[in-house]
């Protein structure tokens, strides 16, 4: 099995892109990634694209064909991958597996979501399809409601506070100010978060990631050939994926995601590293509590201490383990299918030293963590500077 | 007559609208209304309740008191003026929810407020004939009064379920006899597709309620050769507090015999559930040997009268599910705005 490297990246601006269509985003993200990799379109062997719900957001399925078509890459194989909010991370993993196996050489991995062409209520409903329709959504549970229930239990068992959760949002907004692609470039305070409108108590509006349009793209190549294309290839040192029960009430724990623990263990093992070796990470903060649980489940701090670690600044850009330097889903935005890819893009930029004002210093290993729904799918990748 | 009640149960929603609240809204004198109707407040169903959900909880409570296997129920009849569907029975929803399906017959009844007691009579006949082992009759309603109409003070929600079977050791009250009086009298009606009923004002009194209630009661007393003194309790249909007290007095019953079954003061008129809930309240406190007269009334018009004699088995069965007063007392007062929202008087 060959080692895989990332030789090119791109990310569109994330936000409410009223004037930019799904098809335009494909071209923009794809073209810039190819440019960044310094390859010719003709060299691409295959594409994997993560997208949660084009069917519900723009009434379009079969987007694998649509994307290949509009990217000008027909007739190469193009595969659409779906795992709710983990669609992007899963597409990356599929691309990695394809290159590692030797079946393909240069593979484009993308993620894309256009969420703002329908009314907010419809978007919320579409996102709720990540939960169990018969036993959760049917009885009135909303997607934020599921995370709110985890938050309340986490607060009950570990004393995590709403203030600590708010601090994750504050940090991520701050980081996003240094990310030109981020949806938000504004600072917020803990007070702003606490005073924002309740959505599903204890989660408030500013505890929740936004609705966003956006696309991101990576170009993968076999590591042994990567230097032909770039001086700064980034190795995919480890990839891990795990499934868990769809319903939150069927999980073995309500204060963390077992999927994160399982997937990260596999990725760590493959990369030959442990949590202590990770210099920084992009984690799936669809809600502030998700970031707090993620840093615990990934092993960056003890179970129950995620709130304290955030409060004490350990996860800030200058801290012990910077988390979500890109701004995370909260500050950068969360175009569902694109998120997993955008997380990897941030890791690549950081490892290349191209992260500008949000650059993390002295690190060679990063981790990205992408979750589907309330934890039914988790995908983790460990990226390393390839020398 | 060889049949009796094997189990009974009720359900009354938690929410209450006080007369004061509705009166305040329409600029009426609350005290005058309360004196005139002898009603203090009425029950209001929550936004996730309807005739079917009320019927199911009453039915489950009845099955618990009866202590029977629901599969032994051979017939279920639900009487109501507010079935959730115009076409599709409530009875089958109840049957499924209490696990009585599939080997039974079921149907919905309509006869204004006496649809439930009509069901009791059907079950009596079927049980006595040996067609079924047990039959369940339910009267359940979420009545609607037009905003500003006097009915708004009393149109309430609730349900009662009675399980009938051949007399045996599990009978908690034997039915000695039943007598009905029916004429075509348009005192109160609702046309298809209309949201609210209409009524004939003063015509709903003497020529309607009293004519039928009294005729049915006299008919039964004559048939069984009984007098009011032979009874420990009497319960009548209760559209307000005054009518049943007046009917009782006219028949020769004392106030003390009627008050235990007079729930309307605290919960309003639960329509098809009214007489059945009143009867249940009496059974909640009656002793073996007590004789009870129950007379329902349904506009249109008709009355079903029953004479029951309580048996020993009631002592053991009574506490198996909540009593009427448990539901009456477990209440939350709401304001008119909340009431309007719950009853969908306000459209978003």
């Amino acid at each position, binding site marked *: 099995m060959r080692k895989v490297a990332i030789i090119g990246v791109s990310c569109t601006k994330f936000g409410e892109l009223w004037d930019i269509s799904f098809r335009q985003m494909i071209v923009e993200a794809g073209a810039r990634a190819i440019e960044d990799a310094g390859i010719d379109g003709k060299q691409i062997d295959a594409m994997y694209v993560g997208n949660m719900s084009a069917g519900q957001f723009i009434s379009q399925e079969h987007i694998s064909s649509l994307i290949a078509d509009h990217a000008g890459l027909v007739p190469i194989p193009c595969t659409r991958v779906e795992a709710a909010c983990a669609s992007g991370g899963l597409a990356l993993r599929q691309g990695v597996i394809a290159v590692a196996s030797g079946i393909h050489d240069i593979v484009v991995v993308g993620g894309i979501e256009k969420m703002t062409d329908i009314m907010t209520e419809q978007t*919320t*409903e579409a996102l*709720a399809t990540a939960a169990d329709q*018969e*036993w*959760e*959504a*049917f*009885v*009135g*549970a*909303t997607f*934020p*409601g*599921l995370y*709110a*229930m*985890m*938050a*309340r*239990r986490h607060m*009950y068992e570990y004393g995590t506070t709403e203030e600590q959760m708010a601090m994750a949002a504050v940090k991520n907004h701050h980081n996003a100010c240094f990310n030109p692609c981020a949806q938000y470039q504004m600072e917020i305070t803990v007070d702003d978060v606490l005073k924002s*409108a309740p*959505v*599903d*108590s*204890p*989660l408030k509006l500013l505890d929740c990631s936004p609705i966003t349009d956006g696309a991101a793209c990576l170009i993968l190549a076999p590591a042994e050939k990567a230097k032909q294309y770039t001086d700064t290839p980034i190795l995919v040192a480890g990839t891990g994926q795990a499934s868990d029960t769809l*319903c*939150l*009430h*069927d999980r073995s724990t*309500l204060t963390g995601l077992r999927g994160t623990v399982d997937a990260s263990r596999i990725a760590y093992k493959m990369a030959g590293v442990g949590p202590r070796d990770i210099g920084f990470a992009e984690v799936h903060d669809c809600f502030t509590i998700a970031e707090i649980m993620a840093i615990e489940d990934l092993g960056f701090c003890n179970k129950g201490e995620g709130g304290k670690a955030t409060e004490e600044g350990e996860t800030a850009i200058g801290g012990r383990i910077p988390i979500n330097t890109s701004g995370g889903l909260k500050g950068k935005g969360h175009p569902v299918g694109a998120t997993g890819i955008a997380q990897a893009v941030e890791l690549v930029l950081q490892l290349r030293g191209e992260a500008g004002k949000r650059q993390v210093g002295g690190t060679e290993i990063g981790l990205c963590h992408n979750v589907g729904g309330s934890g039914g799918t988790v995908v983790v990748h460990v990226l390393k500077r390839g020398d | 007559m060889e049949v009796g009640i094997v189990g009974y149960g009720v359900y009354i929603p*938690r929410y209450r609208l006080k007369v004061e609240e509705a009166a305040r809204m329409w600029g009426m004198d609350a005290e005058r209304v309360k004196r005139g109707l002898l009603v203090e407040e009425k029950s209001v169903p*929550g*936004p*996730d309740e*309807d005739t*079917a*959900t009320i019927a*199911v*909880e009453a039915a489950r*409570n009845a099955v*618990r008191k009866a202590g029977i296997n629901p599969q032994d129920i051979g017939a279920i009849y639900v009487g109501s003026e507010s079935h*959730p*569907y115009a076409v599709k029975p409530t009875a089958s*929803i109840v049957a499924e*929810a209490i*696990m009585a399906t599939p080997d039974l017959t079921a149907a919905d009844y309509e006869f204004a407020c006496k649809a439930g007691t009509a069901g009791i009579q059907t079950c009596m006949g079927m049980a006595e004939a040996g067609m079924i082992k047990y039959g369940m009759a339910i009267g359940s309603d979420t009545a609607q009064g037009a905003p500003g109409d006097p009915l708004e003070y009393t149109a309430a929600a609730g349900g009662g379920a009675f399980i009938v079977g051949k007399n045996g050791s599990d009978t908690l009250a034997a039915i000695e006899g039943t007598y009905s009086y029916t004429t075509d009298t348009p005192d109160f009606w609702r046309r298809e597709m209309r949201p609210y009923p209409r009524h004939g004002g003063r015509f709903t009194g003497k020529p309607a309620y009293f004519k039928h209630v009294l005729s049915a009661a006299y008919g039964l007393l004559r048939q069984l050769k009984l007098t009011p003194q032979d009874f420990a309790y009497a319960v009548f249909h209760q559209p307000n507090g005054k009518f049943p007290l007046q009917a009782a007095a006219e028949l020769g019953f004392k106030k003390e015999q009627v008050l235990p079954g007079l729930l309307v003061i605290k919960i309003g008129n639960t329509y098809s559930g009214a007489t059945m809930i009143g009867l249940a309240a009496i059974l909640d406190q009656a002793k073996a040997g007590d004789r009870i007269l129950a007379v329902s009334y349904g506009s249109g018009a008709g009355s079903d009268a029953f004479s029951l004699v309580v048996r020993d088995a009631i002592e053991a069965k009574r*506490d*198996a*599910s*909540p*009593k009427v007063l*448990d*539901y009456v*007392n*477990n209440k939350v007062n709401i304001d008119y705005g909340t009431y309007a929202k*719950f009853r969908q008087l306000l459209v*978003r």
Partner: protein
Amino acid sequence: MKCGFCNKVFFPPRFSCPVCRRKGTLEPYKLNGRGKIVTFAITHVAPNGFEDQVPYAIAIIELEEGPRLTAQVTDCDPNQVKIGDEVEMIFRRIGQEGSDGPIYYGYKARLISPYTLRANVK
């Protein structure tokens, strides 16, 4: 359903025991409807069909026999709900498919009140 081999109870019904796999045979098993609130949230932004009930408590409930489920806690002020509260499962209207489609009935939870405790639930 209850597994005849390992005695674990499942809700909703399953057709293969995830613990015993082929060794277990699943038989129908009636739950008594009592449980405890393990965690809950108060929903302010409701999904379609639940707007009129906002704010409401949505909870994960652990039934006495073991299985957990998600349900709305109805007939109460959601601010009064606490982790550990005892509830009973009741039959209520969940929603409807428009004004001319079928009505959905299902289960919701209700906080145990003093009178419920008096009833001997079998």
